[in-house]
């Protein structure tokens, strides 16, 4: 990451890839990349953070970096991962954004999967992505440049506010680039995907490849007349709080599915964001957090169905019960799942 910071400051497009402990190892300089406003692209193949020692999929690596000032975009499958890469540099390099971007996909589940995807022609991709000519760079400009100088107390907070504003601007940039992407290549993207949400009474909010599993489950439940829906988060940073609240405003019971532990004792990071986003709604959906799939623990259509059945029970009884639940673990006690 330090090499990328140097290259980006010099005026180059810098790209790197990492996973799990590799990302954690960059922790300090992730913040430097963001605060120096360097539009670096990072491929993050989500794998759990050790320990206990494990290399399999969950989101604990990128969720650990969620407050580092990076834009984070997640993919359900390889097509989305590919399409997100094509959009990444334009979002990140938008002049009033200038923030590094992390393109995330589920380790092993999609990263090691064989899957047919549509590849675009190189010329069309180059035209879409465009050239990168930053106004300021260490090399090739007629004025000198200092990047990342020591920032004393009278100035540092102002720079952090600039950075926070840049992340707000990234919301607009994400949608602008997605609109042009749809016009150019025909595939539509937004902050999140809504699946069968129009009349949904119960819904899941989740990130990544589990969305495919959930969609199969929803189709089965819908055939039985159950109004189940799904919100699959694509853009986690900037967090589309108002849009998610609006999408959930008519839903009666929601399970937020966290594929990482925050050890907060009150739920995972996605739950905290979604619950916070819904706070200003006139009528809240009842909301629980289901922490699942940690360290590569598999999740099947049957597992997802259990969650929807649990939401139905909450809908029928009006009793939310425990709000912070784990799913998929063996237990000697009777648990929710």
């Amino acid at each position, binding site marked *: 990451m330090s090499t990328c910071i140097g290259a980006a400051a010099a005026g180059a497009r810098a790209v790197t890839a990492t996973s799990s402990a590799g990302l954690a190892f960059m922790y300090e300089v992730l913040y430097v990349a963001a605060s*120096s406003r360097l539009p670096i692209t990072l491929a993050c193949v989500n794998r759990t953070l050790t320990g206990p020692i494990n290399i399999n999929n969950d989101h604990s690596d990128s969720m650990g970096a969620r407050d580092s000032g990076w834009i984070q975009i997640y993919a359900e499958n390889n097509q989305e991962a590919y399409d997100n890469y094509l959009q990444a540099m334009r979002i990140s390099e938008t002049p009033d954004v200038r923030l590094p971007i992390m393109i995330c996909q589920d380790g092993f589940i999609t990263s090691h999967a064989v899957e047919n995807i549509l590849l675009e022609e190189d010329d069309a991709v180059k035209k879409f992505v465009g050239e990168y000519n930053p106004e300021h760079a260490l090399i090739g400009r007629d004025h000198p440049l200092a990047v990342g100088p020591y920032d004393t107390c*009278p*100035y540092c907070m*102002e*720079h952090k506010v*600039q950075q926070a504003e840049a992340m707000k601007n990234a919301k607009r940039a994400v949608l602008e680039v997605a609109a042009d992407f749809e016009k150019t290549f025909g595939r539509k993207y937004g902050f999140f995907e809504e699946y069968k949400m129009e009349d949904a009474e119960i819904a899941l909010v989740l990130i990544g490849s589990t969305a495919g599993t959930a969609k199969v489950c929803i189709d089965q439940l819908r055939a039985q007349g159950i109004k189940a829906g799904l919100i699959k988060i694509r853009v986690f940073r900037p967090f589309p709080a108002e849009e998610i609240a609006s999408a959930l405003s008519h839903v009666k019971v929601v399970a937020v599915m966290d594929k990482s532990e925050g050890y907060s004792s009150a739920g995972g990071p996605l739950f905290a964001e979604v619950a916070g986003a819904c706070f200003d709604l006139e009528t809240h959906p009842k909301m629980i957090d289901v922490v699942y799939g940690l360290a590569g623990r598999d999740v099947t259509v049957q597992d997802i169905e259990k969650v929807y059945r649990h939401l139905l029970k909450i809908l029928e009884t009006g009793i939310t019960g425990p709000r912070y639940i784990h799913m998929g673990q063996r237990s000697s006690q009777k648990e929710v799942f």
Partner: protein
Amino acid sequence: MIHAKDINEQSPWQEMTPGGEIYEGGTARMTLTGQWRSDVPVWMQDQCKQCLMCVPFCPDSSIPVVNGKRTDFDYDHCKGCGICMSACPFEAIRMEKEVHD
């Protein structure tokens, strides 16, 4: 382009450069780091042989040289580290306690 001289402790965030970037050289002169000093070097000119050993040792370029001879300290930037005193072979620099106004 925003110049360093136009940024000060009253500047709103909208009028500062992104990430604190600086688009020109030599701007450290505008930051008066001498305010940090708790000890102050005193140059005893009568003992000084103008060997200039102190000059390259100063980490803050705070010993100005004019026509091949050192002059008095640049107290706007000297942090009072005392390295010049140690480097001087002729005991021509002594350290005193700084007195702040």
